């Protein structure tokens, strides 16, 4: 984990225009993610943690619109505002540099396509060149091998399977040079000409199986040919994670990946994610409502409430020394054996006509007059520990 920042969200405003009114889902959200870290985004249902993730990929569903702010991605030292990029650019980022996995694995997979098809889709989309090169390389190697004289017929037959005809080779090279090539696409539909596709698909499938093995899925060849409804919850989630990681993204956004799973499976998946992090070194943004998971998995944590990031700091810092009253209340609510069962009084405010000042003011035990009318600034109360609260604006750096 370095200090270099990978992604920055600056003053992000997101509104949903519904029949009942305008929902201010995100209100000047500020967040930065460092290279290689695991950052947790924690909050209750409806606090905006999921849409924050979706905003990073600019995938906000229909009645929603981003009304302000920036989503900055660090590309070789330069900051690019994803909100202003063309669709083609974004499509290159999605699944390739930033990947997202979702809460319900069974519904995140298309029920009419096999596992292999869906993971393969991501690979085909982003790593086509690599796959084509591999096929061509295999063909060349096979040709070389065939020159040997000490091969049995069976071995020869096996090697010949990998050899490409000239026409097929030309098609693949064409794809490498012109990824969007129409002729190649046409050829892939015509029965005789599309044999090059078969070779490609085999290579992609090999890659899929490799991914599934990495996910610690037993018997990956068989699983690759299964349909989503045949998989168990844990298995499906591993497939989804494989789908997310297959193009080796720099960052993975995990939106409550274990919420819908049994507790035992949850532990397996969490362990898997930790191991994958060690192997791949991906930056992870872990969205959850479970403080326990945060403590287990994350380096830093952002606490969200009613569309704001209210606290952002190191995990140990937050647990040891929570600054924002909401965070404090949250931590007190974690059930402890022998202690009284606590909860936070009051309700989350409606985001259609949110309160003018701090959105937590009606439930905050430390609320001042200022809090009702004036929104606090997101400032660093200490080094590396930012809070959105009037109690700390005096201590601004």
């Amino acid at each position, binding site marked *: 984990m370095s200090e270099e920042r990978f992604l920055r969200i600056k003053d992000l405003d997101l509104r949903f225009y519904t029949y009942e009114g305008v929902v201010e889902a995100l209100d000047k959200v500020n967040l930065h993610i460092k290279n290689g870290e695991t950052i947790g985004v924690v909050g209750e249902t409806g606090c905006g943690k999921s849409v924050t993730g979706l905003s990073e990929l600019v*995938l906000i569903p229909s009645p929603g619109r981003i009304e302000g702010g920036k989503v900055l991605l660090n590309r070789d030292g330069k900051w690019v505002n994803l909100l202003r990029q063309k669709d083609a650019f974004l499509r290159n980022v999605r699944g390739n540099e930033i990947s997202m996995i979702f809460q319900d694995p069974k*519904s*995140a997979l298309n029920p009419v396509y096999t596992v292999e098809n869906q993971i393969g*889709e991501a690979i085909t989309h982003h790593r086509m060149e690599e796959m084509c090169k591999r096929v061509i390389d295999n063909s060349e190697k096979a040709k070389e091998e065939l020159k040997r004289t000490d091969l049995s017929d069976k071995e020869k037959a096996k090697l010949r399977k990998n050899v490409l005809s000239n026409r097929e080779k030309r098609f693949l090279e064409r794809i490498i040079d012109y990824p969007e090539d129409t002729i190649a696409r046409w050829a892939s539909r015509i029965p005789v000409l599309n044999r090059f596709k078969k070779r490609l698909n085999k290579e992609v499938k090999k890659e899929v199986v490799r991914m599934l093995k990495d996910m610690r899925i037993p018997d990956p060849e068989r699983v690759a040919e299964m349909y989503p409804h045949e998989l168990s919850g844990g298995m499906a989630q591993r497939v989804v994670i494989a789908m997310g990681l297959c193009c080796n993204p720099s960052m993975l956004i995990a939106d409550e990946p274990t919420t819908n799973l049994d507790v035992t499976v949850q532990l397996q998946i969490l362990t898997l994610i930790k191991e994958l992090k060690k192997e791949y070194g991906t930056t992870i943004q872990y969205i959850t409502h479970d403080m326990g998971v945060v403590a287990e998995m994350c380096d830093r944590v952002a606490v969200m409430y009613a569309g704001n990031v209210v606290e952002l700091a190191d995990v140990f810092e937050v647990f040891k020394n929570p600054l924002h009253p909401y965070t404090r209340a949250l931590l007190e609510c974690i059930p402890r054996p022998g202690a009284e069962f606590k909860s936070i009084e009051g309700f989350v405010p409606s985001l259609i006509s949110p309160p003018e000042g701090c959105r937590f003011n009606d439930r905050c035990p430390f609320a001042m007059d200022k809090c009702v009318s004036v929104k606090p600034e997101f400032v660093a109360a200490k080094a590396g520990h930012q809070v959105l609260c009037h109690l700390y604006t005096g201590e601004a750096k």
Partner: protein
Amino acid sequence: MGLRTYILRRIILAIPVLFGAALFVFAVIQFLPVTLRATLYVTNEKQISRLDEIAKLYHLTDPVYVQFYYWLRALLLERNLGTDSLGQPVYEAIMKRMPTTVEIVMYASPIIVAIGLTLGVLSGANKDKLIDQASRVLAIMGTSLPSFWFGIVLLSIFYAGLQWFPPQRVGIEAQKFIGMANSSWRWYTGLVTIDALINGQLWIFVDSIRHLVLPVTVLSLLNSAVMVRVTRSSMLEALSKDYITAAKAKGLTRKEVINKHARRNALIPAMTISGLMVAGLLTGVTITETVFNMGGIGQYAARSATRIDIPPVIGYTIMSAVVFVISNLIVDILYAYIDPRIRLG
């Protein structure tokens, strides 16, 4: 359960339905008094005075279950559906007119499916845009216009006015050619369009196509409306699912997402109403044939109904039920085959 079990189960379930349908028709006929029912079996005038004998001959005074047995036997084994008021056996009358009806339906069905599915998918993918509004208007028109009226209006414009597409099955010259005593015409399938090609008489082929345009248009346009509507809503539902967002998050283009992911999921529920489409076709064919004087089974049944001539109507109804049930069965099987969730159990 696997695919084979599913298919078997479906077939087995269809049989009692068919049986029940026959029973239902039989029960409905039973409401008529014996003398009336006897007249259904009359084949010429002289028999009217000897209705009692006819009643005994056909077991019409026996207990109900005996009657049902004989009725069903006559239906299935002897193919005796009774005689119409003109003295013709109903079964033969229907068989004679069958090819006409088949021909119309044969051309209309693929058009309906093509329009319905394509327009439905496009409509759902581009909600509230121009193509969506246009197809919704089409759908509403399709379900609001009376088919007979639409047919009449088209006849008025395209035949009376423009002389392009005449009613009836073939024109006068073609009729003469086919019906001539020493004509070279040979019937192969019974369908004028196909047989014209086989016979090498291209002009008859063109002529019969010309005659088919209007009835097929009326049938297809109005029946595709339902399919457009259903496909559209199932497309919208598919697009609201999580896997669409996941696909987008993989970096796929909008077109790929719609065509690859959403469409197949949308088409599956749309298939379930293909059965309904068959019902619409059967009904539509009855009306369309009458309007355009095509001489098919539908027209025969409709004319009989007007004259309160019972046997042909009964025969037509039973036939429709059989066609309907079987086509539903086929659709069910196809559906199970396409949806992997059912195919693999």
